[in-house]
């Protein structure tokens, strides 16, 4: 279980142990180094469904939430790959490029273009974040924090698949430079 925000500032006020008379001015310099950072949150499961017409592809939409802060010279990205192929065997398989997705509605950054094919051996793009970008606060940053992007998944519905229930793990990864 994790906290909701990036950074928490907690003021701890303690009782004064002594009372001083008079006035004094103290200057304290505080500096902070903010590096590029990013986090994401994905739903634990998504069901892909067929529309009802025979052998229409299975489809499902996933909402991926993310937070980002990039340096002026930096950038960031969210990618996805499959942790394994569909299981059990006898059903869909990544070897036939059966699982694809498209991206839309990126709250920050540029969504992937066209249809992407999910692979277990390579990361495929979801969103690209430019430099000097951040989520929340408005202005040069996004207004919302976190922001989200929608992924529309499509899975072949081949007659060759045996009847049954199949599952595949997807791993979303966030990276910053």
């Amino acid at each position, binding site marked *: *279980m*994790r*906290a*909701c*925000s990036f950074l*928490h500032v*907690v*003021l*701890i*006020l*303690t*009782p*004064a142990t002594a009372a001083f008379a008079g006035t004094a001015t103290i200057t304290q310099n505080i500096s902070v180094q903010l590096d590029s950072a*990013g*986090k*994401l*949150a*994905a*739903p*634990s*499961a*998504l*069901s*892909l*469904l067929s529309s009802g*017409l*025979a*052998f229409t592809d*299975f489809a*499902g939409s*996933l909402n*991926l*939430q993310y937070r980002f802060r990039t340096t002026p010279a930096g950038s960031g990205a969210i990618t996805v790959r499959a*942790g394994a192929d569909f299981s059990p065997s*006898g*059903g*869909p398989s990544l070897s036939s490029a059966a*699982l694809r997705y498209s991206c839309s509605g990126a709250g920050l950054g540029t969504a992937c273009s066209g249809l992407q094919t999910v692979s277990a051996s390579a990361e495929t793009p979801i969103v690209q974040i430019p430099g000097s970008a951040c989520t929340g606060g408005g202005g040069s940053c996004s207004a919302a924090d*976190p922001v989200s992007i929608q992924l529309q*998944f499509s*899975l*072949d*519905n*081949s*007659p*060759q*698949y*045996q*009847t*049954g*229930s*199949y*599952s*595949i*793990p*997807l*791993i*979303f*990864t*966030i990276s910053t430079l």
Partner: protein
Amino acid sequence: MKHKSIVLLSIAAMMLLFVSAAPCQTFGSSGNTNLNVTVEAEASLYVSTANTALTSTGTLFSDYTGTTNFMYKIRTSKTSGAGNIQLKVTTDFSPSGGPSVANPPTAGDALTYSCTVSSPGTPCSGTQTASTTSNTPVGSFGANARSAREGNSGSVAWTLTNDPLYETGSYSAVVTFTVSAT
């Protein structure tokens, strides 16, 4: 009094810390999602010969013949599934005065057919007689039958009696093919 106020502020600060640490969504440098799909039994069929011409060739009053081709896709349940392709004459020959499936001018006049269904289907056996009242078999499938991704082929070879009682003219009937899978 002052000490009491500061203590209250400390408590408030601690409450703020507690509230801000309340869980909302699990954010991290990576995230996992399981995609789940349930593959059901299903079937579809496409009749590629939209209009089948029945023609008489050779000797006089030889029966009319013709072939209707179709493609099918099927997936039956892995353990106890089954499937079939059937046909039915849903509209008898028209106009009247010619052949008829339901009311032929001569007893024994018939629209009959034989079947070809590629694997994993099993074609109907022998010669079948088409009906306007019931479905008749074209092909059948067992459990875990799965066609090719692009579909598999099949055909029905028709024979229609050439009865001299038929008035000259052109006649047509509608035959409906049905495929099902469990």
